[in-house]
């Protein structure tokens, strides 16, 4: 089944679980997607395996970053019917606060949707959306 078909059926049912299940790495992170009207939220449920610094403890920067990249990819699949997965061109992350041992949320803003490239801003937060733990900026090459 092609991603466009999976995302079409997910859009019809508003259950995005099958889309997440189709990507092994997203399944590994146990990601969830929650869509309310025009609001897209990607959720990374806390798991002990996501810890990078067991002393604090704090989430691994690579776990937070990988989660945000997934959020951007799923956001694009939600926004548009692409026949293939968007490919990350580059990814910039500023880590603003310690990622604590709790669930993390990501919201995505399409800064610019071009014909070939989409520029996204991805904000990851835990306690409140106005206290982001990380801010990501990335370019995705849209499906060829």
């Amino acid at each position, binding site marked *: 089944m092609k991603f466009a078909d999976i995302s079409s059926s997910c859009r019809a049912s508003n259950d995005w679980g099958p889309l997440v299940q*189709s990507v092994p790495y997203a399944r590994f992170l146990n990601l969830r997607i929650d869509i309310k009207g025009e609001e897209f939220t990607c959720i990374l449920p806390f798991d002990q395996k996501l810890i990078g610094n*067991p002393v604090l403890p704090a989430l*691994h920067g*690579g776990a937070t*970053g990988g989660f945000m990249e997934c959020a951007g990819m799923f956001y694009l699949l939600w926004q548009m019917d692409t026949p293939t997965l968007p490919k990350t061109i*580059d990814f910039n992350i500023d880590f603003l606060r310690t990622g604590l041992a709790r669930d993390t949320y990501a919201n995505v803003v399409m800064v610019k949707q071009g014909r070939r490239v989409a520029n996204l801003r991805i904000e990851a937060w835990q306690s409140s959306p106005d206290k982001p733990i990380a801010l990501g900026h990335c370019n995705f090459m849209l499906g060829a």
Partner: protein
Amino acid sequence: MAPTMGLEEFAQFWETSEYASPYNRELGLQPHSVRPDWCVLKVEYAHKLVGDPNTRVLHGGVITALLDAAFGFSIFVKMSQLRLMATLDLRIDYLKPATPDKAVLGGAVCYKVTADLAFVRGCAYHESADDPIATAVGIFMFTDGPTLISNEELVR
């Protein structure tokens, strides 16, 4: 000059230390080789880390974690001591997809340390760092608190 740990000592420390990262272990990151100017970690190919089931290419997030960890590794080697630190920022350019079924190496060098910050750069590749899958730069900040393990304790 500060004594530098050998690969075996580092590998042992990496796997047994109470400071070892569960996420690194979960991804199966292993020390591969170490020189003062190039510290390399390895991640084996695994189905659970695939980002695109059609092409079976590893997800970018795996490369992010590999390089983030290699950066931490290179700072540790540069300073010959373990300090608490946090990634301040990270930039990754994806040059080409990783080849399915092949392990990926993440090499890094810490090229500047100040009182508060460490500056690092590196790349992910299969055989040669001259043919990278991704290139990256990052800045880490030492978080307040004492050195976890001093130079003397490490080499003892």
